[in-house]
C-alpha cells in the first residue's frame, strides 16, 4: 500500500498489516508485535525521514510465507543514521522529560530480523517475523 506522510494514516497501515497476517493465519500475539513494529517504523519515516513534511510517499509491502511475515517500508527522505541510536533507559528519559527514542528499540525487540538500506536517495527498512 502507499500512503502520504501523515500520522493520520498510521491506523490504516496497521489494519493493512493485520489483515494480511490474519489471512495467512499468523498467531494473534505475533500479529500484535508486527502491527506495533510497522507502526513504529512508519512513524519514524514520517517524523524523521520526512521531518514531518506532508505529502511525501510512504510505501509499505507485506508478504506472508509459510514460516515468516516480511515487511518492507520505503521512503525518499533523510536516511536513518544508526550512529544516533542508543539503547533507551527509561528512568533517564523520564528525568530528561523526553517523549521519544523508543521506537527503534521496540522494532529491534519485536522483530527477528531488521535491515536498513539507503541508496540513491531511497531508504528501505526490511523486517522479518518468523512464525512462532
Amino acid at each position, binding site marked *: 500500500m502507499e500512503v502520504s506522510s501523515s500520522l493520520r494514516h*498510521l491506523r490504516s497501515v496497521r489494519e493493512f498489516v493485520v489483515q494480511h497476517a490474519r489471512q495467512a493465519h499468523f498467531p494473534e500475539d505475533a500479529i500484535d508485535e508486527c502491527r506495533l513494529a510497522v507502526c513504529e517504523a512508519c512513524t519514524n519515516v514520517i517524523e524523521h525521514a520526512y521531518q514531518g513534511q506532508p505529502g511525501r510517499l510512504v510505501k509499505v509491502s507485506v508478504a506472508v510465507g509459510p514460516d515468516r511475515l516480511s515487511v518492507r517500508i520505503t521512503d525518499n527522505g533523510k536516511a536513518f543514521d544508526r550512529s544516533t541510536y542508543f539503547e*533507551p533507559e527509561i528512568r533517564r528519559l523520564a*528525568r530528561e*522529560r523526553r*517523549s521519544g527514542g523508543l521506537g527503534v528499540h*521496540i522494532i529491534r525487540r519485536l522483530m527477528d530480523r531488521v535491515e536498513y538500506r539507503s541508496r540513491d536517495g531511497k531508504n528501505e527498512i526490511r523486517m522479518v517475523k518468523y512464525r512462532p
Partner: protein
Amino acid sequence: MSNFSVAFTRQGSIRVLSLTGELDAHTATEFEKAIERCKTNGEFSIVVDGEHLAYISSAGLGVFMAFIEEIRSEGGDIKIAALQDRVYNVFDLLGFPILFEIVGTVEEATRLFATGPQ
C-alpha cells in the same frame, strides 16, 4: 476522525482519565492535552484507566514518560489501571513497571494514593 478519546471523571480528589481507542503518534497529542489540562487545574493525582485502550505505540508511552517527573515534583503521580494484556505487554517491553505503578483496577489505583507515596 480520531479513533482515540479521553474521558475526565473524578474519584474524590483524584482525577481519572479513561482512555478509549488507539493511542499512537497521531492521537498522542490528545492525551498530552488531557495531562496539560490536569496540570492547569492543579490536579496532580492522576489515574489513567486503560480498560478501553485497544492499542498503544511508543508515542503514547512517551507522553507518560515526558510528564511523570513534573507530576511527581508537584507531589502527585500518574498511576495506571486496568490495561488489557496486549497493551500491558507494550508497557512491559520497555520496562515501564519499574517507573510506574500499574494495577488491575481504577479502585486499586485510587487506593494507592490514599495509602501514601509509592
